[in-house]
């Protein structure tokens, strides 16, 4: 894929604005990490000002802080594209008094993603493959006509995309990517569409030095985020660990089953259904995100298939590194580090995985 990217462009913040405007003209809604108040979520972005360009996040296991300052570099918040593509709460249908079924309408506008991170880009591919049959997901997913990625030259302290190969640069599945360097912004394209848009902007040619600096920055970021052995090694070790109950009990001993990791993970997709009925007989069926760390996951009438928390925690980890590859041919963890940052007790997935590998690796 990388060979396809023969051409880079260079520009500044002004050009980013021009790109934003060009993208905005292209679709009816631009979606990305959106600043609202003192938080960053994920949703429609009106203008470049609503993007977290002037914010810096600092992340650590169980800790997240945002600060202002133009020199800062923003990675991501708890909110991933999942918030836009796979709605946290969605109505499925309403059944009227006479049992007529009224299907919930999904909105249908063309959209562009702007500024999303390489890890989140890959997470979309994972979701695409897992949610093949999901109309509500595809009603939004299929409307995404343009993807602009911001590559990470300054990764965060919980990021480990380099270990998985999902970042810090984007290699496929995007139209345009840009990276912020010390002396400007490097743009590249990933599709013909992207190239056409970039060509219309008044960008300068890149020098060899620029390209070299870009590559250095990406390589450095890649190094910084390479904590773990290769995913194949991880899967193998996990496979050997499954029946080591005491190991899984130990690594999950601080877990309180709050499901934050599930909710913030860009590839966790499980949902539950909630049914409501009014005295009039009108009923509603609602679907909502659901975490495998919660007690109900695996519970059935009369018995429970994962009654203990360590079983559910083990499922979370196995799913990412062992089962996802079998299900969709991709590692389910994209190395974004969200589950580490947003875990209120600060359980570090990297540590757990390292332990598995050191104990069960070849």
């Amino acid at each position, binding site marked *: 894929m990388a060979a396809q990217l023969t051409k880079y462009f260079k520009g500044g913040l002004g050009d980013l604005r021009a790109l934003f405007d060009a993208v905005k003209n292209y679709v009816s809604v631009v979606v990305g990490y959106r600043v609202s108040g003192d938080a960053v979520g994920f949703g429609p972005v009106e203008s470049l000002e609503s993007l977290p360009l002037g914010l810096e996040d600092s992340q650590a296991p169980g800790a997240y802080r945002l600060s202002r300052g133009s020199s800062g570099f923003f990675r991501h918040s708890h909110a991933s594209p999942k918030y836009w593509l796979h709605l946290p709460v969605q109505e*499925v*249908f309403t*059944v009227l008094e006479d*049992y*007529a*079924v009224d*299907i919930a309408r999904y909105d249908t506008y063309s959209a562009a993603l702007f500024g999303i991170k390489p890890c989140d880009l890959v997470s979309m591919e994972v979701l695409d493959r897992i*949610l*093949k*049959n*999901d*109309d509500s*997901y*595809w009603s939004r997913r299929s409307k995404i006509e343009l993807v602009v990625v911001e590559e990470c030259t300054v990764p965060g302290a919980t990021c480990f995309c380099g270990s998985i190969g999902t970042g810090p640069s984007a290699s496929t599945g995007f139209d345009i990517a840009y990276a912020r360097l010390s002396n400007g912004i490097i743009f590249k394209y990933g599709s013909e569409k992207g190239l056409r848009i970039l060509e219309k902007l008044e960008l300068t040619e890149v020098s060899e030095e620029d390209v070299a600096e870009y590559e250095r920055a990406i390589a450095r970021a890649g190094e910084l985020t390479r904590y773990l052995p290769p995913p194949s090694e991880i899967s193998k070790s996990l496979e050997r660990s*499954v*029946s080591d*109950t005491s190991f899984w009990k130990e690594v999950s001993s601080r877990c309180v089953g709050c499901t934050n990791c599930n909710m913030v993970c860009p590839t966790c*997709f*499980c*949902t*539950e*259904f909630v*049914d*409501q*009925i009014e005295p009039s*007989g009108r*009923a509603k*069926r609602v*679907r909502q995100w*659901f975490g*495998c760390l919660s007690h*109900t*996951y*695996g*519970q*059935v*009438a*009369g018995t429970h*298939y*994962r*009654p*203990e928390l*360590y*079983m559910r925690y*083990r*499922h979370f980890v*196995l*799913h990412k590194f*062992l*089962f*996802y590859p*079998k*299900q969709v041919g991709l590692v389910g963890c994209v190395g974004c580090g969200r589950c580490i940052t947003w875990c209120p007790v600060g359980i570090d997935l990297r540590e757990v995985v390292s332990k598995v590998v050191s104990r069960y690796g070849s």
Partner: protein
Amino acid sequence: MGARLIPKVGRVVRVVEEAPLVRTYHIRVEDLAEPQPGQFNVLYVKGFGEVVISISNFRYEGASAIAEHTVRTVGAVTSYIQTALNVGSPIGIRGPYGRGWPLKEFEGLDVLVVGGGIGLAPLRPILKHISRYRDRYGRLMLLYGARRPVDMLYKYEYGEYRAIPNSTMLFSIDMPYIGWSDYVGFVTDLIDRVSLDPEATVAYVCGPEVMMKVAASKLVKRGLREDRIFLSLERRCRCGIGVCGTCQLGHLFVCKDGPVFSYQEVKDYLAVGGL
């Protein structure tokens, strides 16, 4: 792209009391594709939710389909079905879903059917299928166990099953009961009481998971191939089409990769508690 989670509205046309807290509902619905034996539908009761229920029998009546579902009352939705659904009641239904019993592939072999309790429901279509295409299969052996005699399903059909040529039928109950002259004990014990040609037998098993595990390992010991033993598994199952994620067993989705699996596919997963 259709709206895949939307039920069609059908109507209950007959209710059969099978056993305490178990009833078979005959549901008429237009425009339902013909299921494979072992597939299931998702039934929806307005305002209370959905449940995944095997199709225990199926036929067309004119343009409309009649699907039979044998439901045991255990939790919220099934209780409501038991309380409120009667002949004439509307009910939502979607399906058929899942991978059913592989039957065509094993034509020519002897067929061993092992059922426990409500687990006979998804096996019933196999019996119907074999009785219809009798000459395509070898011997038919049905081993069926329940807690008590009164808990046995489809009692009114046993005559019909027995009439299938070249078939054996063995029954068991868990505890002795007055008037019961068949076997008392686990249904899996019955496996020891049938003669099997391990080279030429396929087994279809459904019941509580422990029972299926015991049955499978016994059959393996008797020399059956692991890829000729089929189990119909159960997990928390909400959507039926592989999008809600709650039915995962290892990398398998019980609803779309199963519910029927060969023992070979799942034995490693089943061996680990709580996977």
